[in-house]
C-alpha cells in the first residue's frame, strides 16, 4: 500500500523522534547514574600537575646587520701594459715647531701666573736639620730602607750605647752621604757602632747602585738628615 506524502512525513518525523530518543535517553540515563555515584566535589583535593619536557634551545635574538655594501674596486685595470702609479707621499700637515726649552711657548693662558719655575721638587737640603721627631716606621718605604741595611749583630759582640746614624737621602733615592751623631748612652766605641757603620755603608752601596725614588708623600725627608737609631736585644 502506498502512503501519502503527508503520512510519509508524519511517519518519518515519528521515526526520527523515536530514534533520537533511543539514542539520547540511554546517554542521559547513564550520565546521571555516573554523577550520582561520583563523590562530591567538596571532598576532592585539587592537584596540579605539570609535565616537564626538554626545552628546545632558543636562539638569542640576533642583531640585524645592514647588508654591507659591495665595494667595487675602482680603477682596476685589466690592461697589462698600464704602468703602476707611483705612491704619493702623505701630505703632512704643517706642525708647529716646539721649543724644547719652552714647550708651552705660544700656549700660555692669558690669565696664567708668572711664577718662578721649580728646579728642585723636594726643596733645598738643610744640613742643620735632623729628624728627632717621634718614630715613623709604618711606611713601607722605610721598611725597605731598613731591610737594605742588612743590619746584623754578632752574638758575642758588645753593645753599650745606641748609635744614631743619619743619611742624606736624595729624591731620586740615592744617598749622598751619611754621618753619625753622638750615641745615646756610653761613648760609641763598642761593636754596635761598628755594626751601625757597616749597616749604613751597605745601605748607601745598595741604594746608589739600585735607587728607589722617594715617594712624593715622603719628599719632606729629603730636606734634612734622615736618622736611624740602632739597638739590639738578646736573641
Amino acid at each position, binding site marked *: 500500500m502506498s502512503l501519502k506524502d503527508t503520512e510519509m512525513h508524519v511517519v518519518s518525523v515519528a521515526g526520527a523522534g523515536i530514534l533520537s530518543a533511543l539514542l539520547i535517553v540511554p546517554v542521559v540515563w547513564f550520565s546521571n547514574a555516573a554523577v550520582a555515584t561520583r563523590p562530591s566535589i567538596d571532598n576532592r583535593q585539587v592537584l596540579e600537575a605539570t609535565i616537564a619536557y626538554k626545552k628546545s634551545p632558543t636562539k638569542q635574538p640576533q642583531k640585524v646587520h645592514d647588508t654591507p655594501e659591495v665595494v667595487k674596486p675602482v680603477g682596476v685595470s685589466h690592461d697589462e701594459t698600464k704602468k703602476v702609479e707611483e705612491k704619493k707621499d702623505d701630505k703632512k700637515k704643517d706642525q708647529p715647531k716646539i721649543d724644547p726649552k719652552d714647550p708651552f711657548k705660544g700656549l700660555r693662558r692669558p690669565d696664567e701666573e708668572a711664577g718662578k719655575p721649580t728646579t728642585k721638587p723636594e726643596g733645598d737640603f738643610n744640613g742643620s*736639620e*735632623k*729628624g*728627632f*721627631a*717621634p*718614630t*715613623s*716606621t709604618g711606611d713601607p718605604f*722605610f721598611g725597605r*730602607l*731598613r731591610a737594605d*741595611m742588612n*743590619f*746584623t*749583630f*754578632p*752574638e*758575642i*759582640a*758588645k*753593645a753599650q750605647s745606641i748609635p*744614631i746614624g743619619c743619611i742624606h737621602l736624595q729624591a731620586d733615592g740615592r744617598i749622598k752621604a751619611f754621618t753619625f751623631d753622638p750615641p745615646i748612652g756610653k761613648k*760609641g*766605641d*763598642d*761593636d754596635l*757602632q*761598628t*755594626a*751601625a*757603620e*757597616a*749597616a749604613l755603608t751597605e745601605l748607601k752601596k745598595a741604594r746608589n747602585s739600585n735607587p728607589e725614588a722617594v715617594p712624593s708623600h715622603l719628599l*719632606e*725627608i729629603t730636606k*734634612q*738628615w*734622615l*736618622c*736611624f*737609631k*740602632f*739597638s*739590639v*736585644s*738578646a*736573641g
Partner: protein
Amino acid sequence: MAMLQIQRISGVIVVAIFASAVQAQPAGDKGGGTVIDVAGTKGGKYPIALPTAPDNDTTAKEISQVESFDLNVAGPFKVLDPQSFLADLKTEGLGIDAQKWKDVGAYGVIKYKASADAIDFKLYEVSKGNKPSLEKTYKRAGTDTRTIVHRWCNEVVKYYTGEAGFFGSKIAFTAKGKGQSAIMAMDFDGHGAYKVSNNSSTNILPAWSPSGGQIAYTSFMRSNPDLYIAPAGGGRPKQVSKQRGMNTGASWSPDGSKIAVTLSKDGNPEIYVINASDGSVISRLTKDKAIDTSPAWSPNGSEIAFVSDRNGGPQIFVMPASGGSAKQVSFNGNYNTTPTWSPKAGKRIIAYTTRDGGNYDIVALDLDSKAMTRITQSEGSNEEPSFSPNGRAIAFSRSGQGIFIANADGTGKAVKVYSVSTTGVDWGPAPKD
C-alpha cells in the same frame, strides 16, 4: 634668650674641640723630621780577621793555621778570608789601621809576632781603634807552638764569652783494626794521636776521669769484658771491675770517686755504682727485667741518664744518682742511645744518638724546655756524641769516616778531625795551663 644660650654653648664646644686638637700634636715635634728605629737581635758569628804575620815563615804559618782552626770550631767566630784583607800588614806591624779592617767587615783582628824566645799576641776590636783590647806574651822554651796558640785562643774565647775555651783538650776513642780495637787519645784537633791500651785484644768505651789524668775502658784482654783504668798518657791499666758477665759503659762521678757502670752479674744488664779505686759495688740503681745500660753521670752529680728498653725499643731515661724512679726523656723515634750530658752550668741538656730512617744522627735535647736541636742530618751515620768541656761543641763518630766536631747549637758544618774508623768517642776535660 634661649637661642643666645644655645649659641654660646655651641661656641664653647667648638673652642674645646679646637683646643684638644692642638693639644693632640705630638710633643717634641721640631719640624717634621723622622727617626727610624733599627732594632736587631743578637745572633750570628763575630767576624774576626787573623792575618798571617808578614815574615810568613814556618812558625808564622803554623800559628795562623792553628789559630784559624781553633777560632773556627770555637763556635761564635767567623774567621774572615785572608784574601779579602786590604791593610798593608808590613806597614801596620803589630798595630792596625782600624778603618781598613772595618772596610772588610772585621769586628776583631789578631796580630802576633814570633821570636826565638816568645810569641806576642794582640787582639784588637776595630770599634776601639788601634788600642789592643787583649795582649799576651808566651815564652817558647819547653812549650810547642801549637800549645801556645791553643792557650792564646782560650784567652780570646774567655775575653768574649766569659767561658773557658777547649783548645788543648783531648779526645779518647776506640780505633778499629784487624781483629782488634784499641783505645787511643789525641788532641781535640786530631794532632798527636797515641795508643792508650796496651794489648791487641778488643778494647771499647773509653771514659776520661774528671781530672783528665785517667781513662777507664772495657777490655776483653782476659776474655771477659772487664773494666780497667789506665793513665791518660797510656800504659799498664789496673783491672777495676771483673764481675761475671759485662763490666761496661763506665761514667765517672763529677768528683772522680765513683763510677756508674753496667754489670750483668745478676742476670740481665743493670746500672750499678762502684768505687773508682777498687771497683767494689756501692749500690745497684736499676732493677728491671729490661736491659739497662750506657749510664751517663750529670755534671752536677745529681742525676744519671741511661738507656733502657723497658718500654719497647731503646730509649733514654733519667733517674736520681742515688737510684729511684726513672723517667723516660726521649720520645722521638724508636731507637735512642748513648746519652751524654752538656757541661753547661744551669742547663740540663743531653745529646744522644737517634735512628732516623736507616741512618743514625746526633740530637741534643733540653730536658727542661723540651727543645730539640739536630746536630747532624743527611751526612752519613753519626753516633756516640760527647760534649766539649765548655759545651759549645760536640765530637762524634761518623761511620767509616772518622771523628768530627760540630757546633752544639746545630749551626754550621761538622769538621773532620780524625780519619780512621772509630767508635766510643769521649771528650776529655779542659786543659790545665
